[in-house]
C-alpha cells in the first residue's frame, strides 16, 4: 500500500474540490455500474409476461381495491418529531468541533445544554401526552 499518496486526505494536501470531484466521479461510476448491470440483465433475461404475472401480489387472490391504504397517523407523528429533532441534532456538529477549543469551553457547553434542554422538554411533553405510546 506504499503507492497510496497522501493526497486523498484533504487536511494533508489535496483540495476541497478534488474531494468532491472524486465523489462526483464515484456517483458516475455507480450509475454506470447500475446501467451495465441492467443492460446485461436485459440481454440475458426472458420476457414472458402474462396478465396474471403482472397482477399485484395479494396472497394469491385477485387484488382488491387500489394499491394504497390508510395507516395510523402515529407514524406521521414520529416523522414530525424526527424533522424537529434532526434540525436540533445538526447544530451539535459545528458545536462539537469547537466547544473544547480555546475561547469556548464551559460557557458553550452550558449554551448547548440549554438548547438540548428545551428539546428534551419537548420530548418529555410528547412522552407525557402519550404520543410515544401505542394504543
Amino acid at each position, binding site marked *: *500500500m506504499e503507492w*497510496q*499518496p*497522501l493526497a*486523498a*486526505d*484533504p*487536511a*494533508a494536501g*489535496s483540495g*476541497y474540490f*478534488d*474531494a468532491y*470531484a*472524486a*465523489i462526483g466521479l*464515484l*456517483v458516475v*461510476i*455507480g*450509475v454506470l455500474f*447500475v446501467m451495465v*448491470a441492467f443492460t*446485461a*440483465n436485459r440481454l440475458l*433475461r426472458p*420476457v*414472458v*409476461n402474462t396478465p396474471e404475472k403482472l*397482477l*399485484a*401480489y*395479494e*396472497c394469491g387472490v385477485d387484488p382488491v381495491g387500489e*394499491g*394504497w*391504504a390508510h395507516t395510523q397517523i402515529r*407514524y406521521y407523528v*414520529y416523522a414530525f418529531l*424526527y*424533522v424537529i*429533532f*434532526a434540525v436540533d*441534532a*445538526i447544530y*451539535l*456538529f459545528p458545536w*462539537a*468541533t469547537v*466547544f*473544547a477549543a480555546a475561547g469556548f*469551553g464551559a460557557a458553550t*457547553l452550558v449554551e448547548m*445544554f440549554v438548547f*438540548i434542554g428545551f428539546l*428534551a422538554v419537548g*420530548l418529555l411533553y*410528547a412522552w407525557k401526552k402519550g404520543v*410515544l405510546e*401505542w394504543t
Partner: protein
Amino acid sequence: MNLLDTLLRCVGTLVAFLVLPLVVGQAEHKVMAHMQGRLGPMYAGGFHGWAQLVADGVKFVQKEDVVPAGADRRIFRLAPAVALLPYLLVLLVIPIGPNGLVGQAVDAGIFFVLAVMGIGVLGSLMGGWASANKFSLLGALRTAAQLMSYELPMLLAAASVAMAAGTVSLPGIVDAFHWWWVPWQLIGAFVFFTAGLAELQRPPFDMPVADSEIIFGAYTEYTGLRFALFLLSEYAGIVVLCGLTTVLFLGGWHGPFSDGLGVVWTLAKTFALAFVVLWLRVTYPRLREDQLMRFAWTVLIPLALAQLALTGIVKVAIS
C-alpha cells in the same frame, strides 16, 4: 488532482462495494446455518459453498424482470438504484488505514455519511409506493417511520464522538482516538450500532419487511436483478455500519503493530461487528412495531442524550 489516482480509488471502492457485502452474505449463510445446527451451502464453488452468492448473482441477472401492471413503471425501476448508491458513496469516505489510506477523505466526514445514508430511505418509499401493492405501501410507511425514528439516536451518538474528537472528519476522529474512549463512549457505541441495525431493517428490527405480516414490505413486487440490488444494499449497509462503528467507536486502524497492519485491524474489527449483526439476527425474535418505536424514542434517544452530556462534561473537564 491526479485523475488516474482518483479513478483507481473510485474503482477500488466499487470493487470493495461488490465484494465485501458478498463476504458478509456468505458469512451470514454459514454462521446462521451453524447456529441452527446446519451446514449451510456446501456445493457451489467446491469448498464449503464459497461461491454460493456469486452463483446467486448470476442467477439474478438471468431472471425475468416483472413490473406489475398497476405500477408506476419509472419510479418502480429507479427505486433500487436510489436505495443502493448512497451506500457506495459512503464506502468511499470510510478510512481503513493510517496515512490517508481512504477512498477519499471528506472534511465533513460524519456529516456526509449520515446525510447520504438518509437518502436511502427514499428508495424504499419510492419502491413501496410505485408497486401499487398494499403490502408494499405498508412496508414503505413502516420503513420510513422506522428509519426516521432511528436516524436521530444515530445522529446524536455520532455527535458525541465528534465532540470527543473535536472534529467531524473520519480520519481525524480515528487519529484522535485513545483506548479509553471505548469505555467513555460505550453508551454511544451501543446506541449507534443498535440504531444502525434498525436502519438496515435487520432482525430483530425487521418489522418493515416482516414476512409473516406484509410479505416482504416495500420489496414485495420486486424480482430478479432489482430485488438483488435491494438485497445488495442491505448487505452493503451492514458493511458500512460496521465500518463506521469501527471508525467512530473502536479506533479504526489502532491496535498492536498498527503501523503495518492498520488495514488488517480495521477489517478485523469490521468483520467482528458484522458477525455480531448476524449473531443478533439468529438469536432474537422480531420486535413488534410499537415496541420498535418505543425503543427508539424512550430508550435510545434518552441514552444518546445522556452520552452527549457525559462526553461534554468529561471533555471540558480534561481540556
